[in-house]
């Protein structure tokens, strides 16, 4: 058991003492960051399945509108003869986005990878606040229950979009899903926020306070930088969403009028009070949810940077520019929220300001892409499964980034706003980007988590099919967007303008079915390898960062020695080292030539 730099007195030590050896304290209410990370991982992967199935429901309706849904249609909507009803469709896309954003992407990046990797990669024995860490996981459960039970409320779930714009979301009469389901939705999102806030405080403190001796801020792996900046974003942006959520809750249940204008009547029911402004919600919501877009990608960018450098066997190109660019994205990320509102009725003069800041935020993203390309240039590329996922992140993020320029251009946004162009854009960023990085991350760190490798051959099949199907599903959305095909319509084909787009939608649906089906390979590989995968030692990939110096899987307290950090994490191919990697913990060859650095903080 190491005591890292005496930075804290390891309050979790009790947890693995003889008296607390029970299953419950080890695997359920565990204080160990690794167990908590895995709890997040398993929970979010389960919700990933739910979100994927909801997406297939959407795709079914768009390919075969009003056709009976095969097999499950009869079970779900017997009274409609197996058809998806328009209100059910509205619920589907609302809950698909809600589940994917709040229960999958945010918690899998910060909760699963953040928890698992932060202490290991900075050389700490655990998080700064293990109890808070445990609570951050268990506060997800009220959210799971609230959102889960909203499926059984009238309307089968919230149905005002994941953006939950009032008055649709505040007036109980507005839509079948605007009743209790919407209240449960708000409670669920609030609990996710509480969980994220607990995580955020913990990550910031841990990264600042608990780094191993020699681990200066500029020796941190990019994954940790991504997690750190994300934690900062969450800490500053989340209170706004929480406040806005409570305001909406008050509008709904107490009868305040934050978002209800004077004399509002929806579906023959009047609002209790008026004098509010629906646009206020949009401002507050996007003040959180735009930074949240970066919360959903910065850790992925960090993970991709680490994977690419490792399998290029070459230092990361432009480490400091990479750090500055994610910081730049985070800073600019707070002043671009209005680009979601160009045609919302917001003062168009303000649109010009937000357009300019939005254009500028493309710059740090471009810098990152160029640096990733610079990293593989001149490398010794090993096409492992994690590397393929990481390379596809770069390739796909370019598409998602460039399509953003169209919508940042305010006049163009007039036409493409709320069309499938937008849907294409954020799926390229969030699925083709983040989800692919997450897969890469799972393949990469799996041997650390379970001491066994995932099967490479199955991994490559999984990659290939996912890559092909995702492009079949999402690339074509750009074309739909160019025609002006609107989002969120249960049946767009009764418009003359869009009637002929059905064949393309069928193609996309079959690709989507293929994409979801492909994940069976992943699930099989994951669980099979957990028990029967090839056993490996500490460092199967020949990587530099600290987690690879710990046992696989690491025990409580992580390291069986005191890690001391001598260099940055990207010294691959260094002439100073005999191997093509040079772990951060390996002392320099001539003792004395490089004095042992002092601790990062004293």
């Amino acid at each position, binding site marked *: 058991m190491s005591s890292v730099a005496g930075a804290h007195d390891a309050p979790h030590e009790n947890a693995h003492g003889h008296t607390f050896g029970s299953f419950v304290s080890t695997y359920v209410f565990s204080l160990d960051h690794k167990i908590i990370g895995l709890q997040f991982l398993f929970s979010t992967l389960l919700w990933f399945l739910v979100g994927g199935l909801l997406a297939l429901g959407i795709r079914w309706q768009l390919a075969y509108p009003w056709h009976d849904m095969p097999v499950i249609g009869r079970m779900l909507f017997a009274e409609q003869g197996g058809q998806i009803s328009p209100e059910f469709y509205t619920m589907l896309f609302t809950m698909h986005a809600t589940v994917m954003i709040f229960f999958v992407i945010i918690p899998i990046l910060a909760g699963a990878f953040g928890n698992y990797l932060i202490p290991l990669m900075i050389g700490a024995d655990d998080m700064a606040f293990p109890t808070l860490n445990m609570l951050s996981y268990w506060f997800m459960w009220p959210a799971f229950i609230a959102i889960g039970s909203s499926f059984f409320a009238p309307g089968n779930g919230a149905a005002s979009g994941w953006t939950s714009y009032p008055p649709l979301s505040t007036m109980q009469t507005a839509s079948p899903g605007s009743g209790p389901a919407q209240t449960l939705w708000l409670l669920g999102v609030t609990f996710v926020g509480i969980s994220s806030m607990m995580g955020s405080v913990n990550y910031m403190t841990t990264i600042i306070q608990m780094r191993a001796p020699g681990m200066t801020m500029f020796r941190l792996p990019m994954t940790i930088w991504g997690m750190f900046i994300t934690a900062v974003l969450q800490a500053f942006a989340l209170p706004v969403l929480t406040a806005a959520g409570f305001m909406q809750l008050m509008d709904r249940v107490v009868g305040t009028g934050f978002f209800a204008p004077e004399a509002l009547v929806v579906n023959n029911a009047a609002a209790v009070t008026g004098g509010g402004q629906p646009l206020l919600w949009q401002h507050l919501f996007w003040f959180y949810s735009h930074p949240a877009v970066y919360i959903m990608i910065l850790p992925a960018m960090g993970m991709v940077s680490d994977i690419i450098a490792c399998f290029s066997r070459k230092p990361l190109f432009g480490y400091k520019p990479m750090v500055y660019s994610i910081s730049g994205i985070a800073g600019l990320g707070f002043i671009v929220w209005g680009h979601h509102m160009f045609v919302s009725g917001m003062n168009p003069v303000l649109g010009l300001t937000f357009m*300019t800041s939005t254009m500028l935020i493309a710059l740090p993203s471009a810098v990152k892409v160029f640096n990733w390309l610079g990293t593989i240039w001149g490398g010794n590329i090993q096409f492992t499964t994690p590397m393929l996922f990481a390379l596809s992140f770069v390739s796909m993020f370019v598409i998602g980034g460039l399509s953003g320029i169209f919508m940042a251009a305010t006049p163009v946004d007039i036409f493409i706003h709320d069309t499938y162009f937008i849907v294409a854009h954020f799926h390229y960023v969030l699925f083709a980007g983040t989800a692919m990085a997450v897969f890469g991350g799972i393949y990469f760190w799996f041997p650390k988590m379970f001491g066994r490798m995932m099967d490479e051959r199955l991994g490559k099949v999984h990659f290939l099919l996912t890559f092909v199907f995702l492009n079949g599903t999402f690339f074509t959305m750009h074309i739909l967007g160019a025609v002006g095909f609107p989002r969120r319509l249960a049946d767009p084909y009764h418009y003359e303008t869009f009637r002929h787009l059905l064949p393309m939608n069928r193609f996309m649906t079959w690709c989507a079915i293929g994409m979801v089906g492909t994940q069976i390979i992943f699930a099989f590989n994951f669980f099979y390898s957990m028990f029967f995968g090839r056993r490996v030692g500490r460092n199967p990939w020949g990587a530099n960062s600290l987690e690879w110096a710990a046992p696989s899987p690491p025990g409580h307290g992580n390291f069986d020695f005191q890690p001391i950090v001598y260099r940055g994490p990207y010294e691959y191919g260094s002439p100073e080292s005999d191997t093509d990697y040079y772990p951060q913990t390996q002392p320099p060859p001539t003792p004395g030539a490089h004095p042992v650095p002092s601790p990062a903080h004293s």
Partner: protein
Amino acid sequence: MGYSRWNRWWSILFLLVPVLGVATFAVSMAEVGPFHRHWLPDNVNEFGGVIDDLYYFILYLTGAIFVGTGLAQFWFMWKYDGGQHSEPVKYTHGSHTLEVVWSILPAATLLFIAIYQMNAWADQKMRRPVIDVGSDQEEGTADDVYQEPLAVVTGRQFEWRIRYVLPGEDGKTGTSDDDLHIVNDLHIPVNEKVVLQIESQDVLHSFFLPNLRVKQDVVPGMKQFVWFQANRTGVYDIVCAELCGWGHYKMKGRLTVESRSDFDRWVAEQYALQQSTQLPMTTSMTESE
């Protein structure tokens, strides 16, 4: 780690990204075969061309970057495939010069796009048509007299209620009793600058005319204006583009662009019909679809 000869194919797979990406856009733009009408719908707005021009400008610019980065990624993956060569890696931590170059070039390009489009945005959303610039002879000042809206379009779950502001029998505009009330059927004269006042009666909606490149969310409690000049007669879709409830998908209207004489005749006919039925409009108009 074992190397397989299959690894050569991974670079090819990534080469397919720019190749098939460009091909998809190319066949859609050319509207060949099954891709007929898989591109920007016909623009019939005199002021909408600028949006299309900007779309093409950004498309070509981003297309070039997409192809450039895609080819570079393919080439690096092909050339530096670890299974194919044994030279030592280029042990470098980056290049200050390159970082400066690839920061300044995109920054300049992005700022250029930002400034370049400002005028188009102002024309679409800020410079509401003026009929009299006032005594100072300058547009954009407080004494401008704006063009009156041809009609007030009000979104409501799930229909578009249209009110033509007519002088009517009392000879005065603004008295709603003698206005013409229509649902989901908007007629406008061709080759004339048209201003519409758009409002919402209940939740958010968005007034979207794909063929005129017009989109504006309507917000209850707010009064907004859109303007355009249709230059081709025909019938076009009015789409609701902001989620407004379970029936959002069916909130469909029809825009008829016709000659001034046809338009005047239609208004007169409809007005006569309205007066003859003697029903309050709320009962006669809710049966929309």
